[in-house]
Structures are given as C-alpha cells and as structure tokens.
C-alpha cells in the first residue's frame, strides 16, 4: 500500500514538475538552435490548407485574414476543403475566384478532408490552419523561416487565447483596420470589444485555469523544441514540408499530433516558433473545455494504435519526451486515484501520510469550490455569450450593408 502510494505520488510529481525541470536543464546544456532563412529562402512557396464543415459564417473573415498577411501573393496558395458543408461555405469561397482553391468532398471528417487537399498543394511548404482563428500579419513569414534549415521538417506556431492576453482584442481590431473595414465598422468594432471584455470577465472561472495550463504547455513545447522536437503541433497554425506529408487514416482525431510525429519519425525536427502567432478564444465554459479535452485525450490514446512504433525507444527519436509528456498525462488520472485511495489507510502510520492526506483533501475541496464558482458564473456567461453573438450578428449585418 505504501509502495503504491509513493509510486503514484512520484509519477504525478515527475509528470508535472520533474519532467519540466529536467527539460529546462537539458535545454540549458544542449540547446539546438535553428538556422533561419534570409532573402528568397525566407519566403518559400506555401500552400495553406483549411478543412471546413459548415463554416460559412467564419470563412469570409478567415480568408480575408490570410489574404492580408505580409507574404508575396505569388508564393501563396489557399486551399479550403469543404467537408460536406450544407451551408453557404462553397458560395462564400467562390466569391474569391482564383484566390482560393476550393475542394468539395462528402462529409468524412477532418482527416479525410485534409487528405483531399493533398494533391492540390503545389508549393513546397504546407501550412495547416483552422477556420476560426486569426493569424498575426507576420505569422506566415515567421512560420516558414525555420525551413531554411534542412534538418527542420515541421514548425508549429503559437496560439494565443484571449484569456492569456488583452492583446487578442487589439490584434483583432488591427486585423479589421488592415482589411479596411474600420471606417465602416467604427462604433460596432468598439461594441464588439466591449462585449468581448464582458465575456472575458464572466468566463474567467475556466479561462483562468485553461490560460495557466496553456502557458505551461507552451513552455514545455518551447523546451522540447530546444532539445530536439515538439511532440505535436497547434492545429491552428503549423507547417510541414510537402514531401513529408503522408495521408492520414480517415478517423484520425489528432492530425496535429500524428502528422508532426510522423515527420519526427522520418528523422526531421519539428520546432516551435513562438513568433508565428494565431489568436483564438478559450472555451466559454467548462463543458466546452471538457469536450475539447476528451477529444484530445481520446486522440492521444488513438495515436498509440495508429503509430505503435512511437513506443519503441530505438525508433522514436523523442521517446523520453513522448513517454514523460504524453503517456505520463494519460497515466496521471489513475495515479491521482491511487494516491488518494492508498493514502487513507496509511494515514495513521506516520505524520507524513497525515500531511499528504490533508493536502489532498484540501486540494479536492478547493477544486469543489472552483466547480461552485464555475456553475455560478455559467448563467452569467450564457447571457454574455448571447450578447456577444448578437453583437457579432449586428457587426456582420453592418459590414454587409457597408459593402
């Protein structure tokens, strides 16, 4: 019982504290810098791929954002795959004429949609993005710069959530101004920012935790990149060499983990460039964030049988990182249960075990209090979400009228 307690406790401590500390020391001792490109090598041809299912409401802003990026137009291709969309997705895209390559397929999921885009990509670097997020103006240049180094097979950018920084709303307004809509939108844009501020204030229960978790994850990613390769990419902004792009199994959940890991298994590095930035919103409540996490963790389990060689230390160049980070996270929930259940019967044997039991009980009581705060703020968040939605609809209507 005591042994099981200590094994569980040490596993949790290793995954969340020990591994990051080891990585930090490792990175300090063996940093592997990336040689960035200059001149023509700094702007290789890029094919940007977006898989969209019923995203008509978002795609106009998304494509406008991509077209406004600081990158030579003749070296940029935008491919949008409509994954069985039943709304106006294709009609919205047709208005862009030759600026956007449209691929319409039957609904088969994101992986199948990405596979459909593969034959259409004509440039050497493929950038993957989603319909919802927004790129910073220099994101594409920053994302492709590390490819000047021939050892680099993939690059992931940084996704900034609105709960991390007020920079988000400022960036969105800047993007609006760059598109030339500011004069028409004027006060509406200001309204949207006010609504966004209100939304941030009421959803902070989950956003606080998610923001902190996301910053922690990005620090791990930065350190893993410094010592070799990251263990996945941010689905909203990552790029690989087209030659390394392999078709995904149709039901793949985490294309943004499987694709980069295949690049790593092929002997290339996948690095994190935090200067390549995309912006997004955190989930509005715990249910939405929980659904996202269930999907992510289900995907991590799925990858074990899609790519079992990841478990072989002689085949996986980042085996230590993979086991410590990805597999460790899968094991922690069970270690938490084991640590608590084994702590109860041994608590009377030593003061240390009494202290650890008190600490665990205090932690779960705090988590319960956090749950109460979440449920209390949920009603208010729903109201704010409705207001933000109404404001967005009003903004879209105004923009349509102005156009």
């Amino acid at each position, binding site marked *: 019982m005591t042994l099981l307690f200590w094994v569980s406790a040490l596993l949790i401590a290793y995954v969340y504290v020990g591994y990051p500390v080891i990585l930090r020391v490792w990175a300090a001792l063996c940093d592997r810098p990336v040689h960035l490109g200059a001149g023509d090598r700094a702007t290789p041809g890029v094919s940007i791929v977006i898989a969209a299912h019923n995203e008509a409401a978002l795609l106009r802003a998304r494509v406008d954002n991509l077209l406004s990026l600081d990158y030579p137009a003749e070296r940029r291709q935008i491919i949008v795959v409509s994954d069985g969309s039943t709304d106006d997705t294709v009609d919205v895209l047709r208005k862009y004429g030759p600026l956007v390559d449209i691929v319409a397929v039957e609904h088969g999921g994101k992986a199948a949609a990405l596979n459909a885009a593969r034959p259409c990509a004509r440039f050497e670097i493929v950038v993957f993005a989603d319909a919802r997020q927004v790129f910073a103006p220099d994101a594409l240049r920053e994302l492709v710069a590390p490819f000047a180094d021939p050892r680099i097979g993939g690059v992931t950018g940084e996704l900034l959530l609105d709960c991390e920084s007020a920079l988000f709303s400022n960036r969105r307004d800047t993007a609006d101004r760059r598109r030339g809509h500011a004069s028409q939108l004027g006060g509406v844009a200001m309204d949207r920012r006010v609504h966004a501020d209100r939304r941030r204030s009421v959803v902070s229960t*989950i956003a606080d*935790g998610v923001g902190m978790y996301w910053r922690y994850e990005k620090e791990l990613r930065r350190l893993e990149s410094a010592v070799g390769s990251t263990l996945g990419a941010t689905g909203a902004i990552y790029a690989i060499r087209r030659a390394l792009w392999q078709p995904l199994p149709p039901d793949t959940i985490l294309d943004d983990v499987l694709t980069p890991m295949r690049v790593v298994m092929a002997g290339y590095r996948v690095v994190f460039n935090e200067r390549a930035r995309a912006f997004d919103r955190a989930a509005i409540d715990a249910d939405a*964030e929980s659904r996202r996490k*269930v*999907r992510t963790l*289900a995907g991590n*389990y799925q990858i074990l049988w899609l790519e079992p060689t990841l478990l072989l230390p002689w085949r996986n160049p980042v085996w230590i990182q993979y086991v410590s980070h990805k597999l460790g996270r899968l094991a922690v929930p069970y270690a938490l249960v084991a640590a608590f259940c084994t702590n109860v019967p041994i608590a009377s044997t030593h003061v240390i075990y009494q202290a650890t039991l008190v600490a665990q009980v205090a932690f779960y009581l705090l*988590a319960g209090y956090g*749950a109460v705060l979440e449920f209390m703020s949920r009603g208010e968040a729903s109201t704010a979400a409705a207001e933000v939605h109404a404001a967005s609809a009003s903004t879209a209507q105004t923009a349509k009228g102005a156009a």
Partner: protein
Amino acid sequence: MAVVSRIARVAYTFVMMNCAAVAGLFAAARGRKVWR
C-alpha cells in the same frame, strides 16, 4: 480571497482535465465519434 478563488479555479480545471482523460479513454475504446 481572490488568491483562493484563483487557486480553486486552477484546481477545478486540473481535476476536470483529468476526468476528461478518463472519459477520453472510454471514448477511444468505444470508437465514439468525438472528432467529426
């Protein structure tokens, strides 16, 4: 009090994410379509 609330929120998120990890295992095992 604000500090306690903040720690409580982080603790809640941590617990919620670990519950999601277990749910993820069941979702993957049952082949539930969580990705479309």
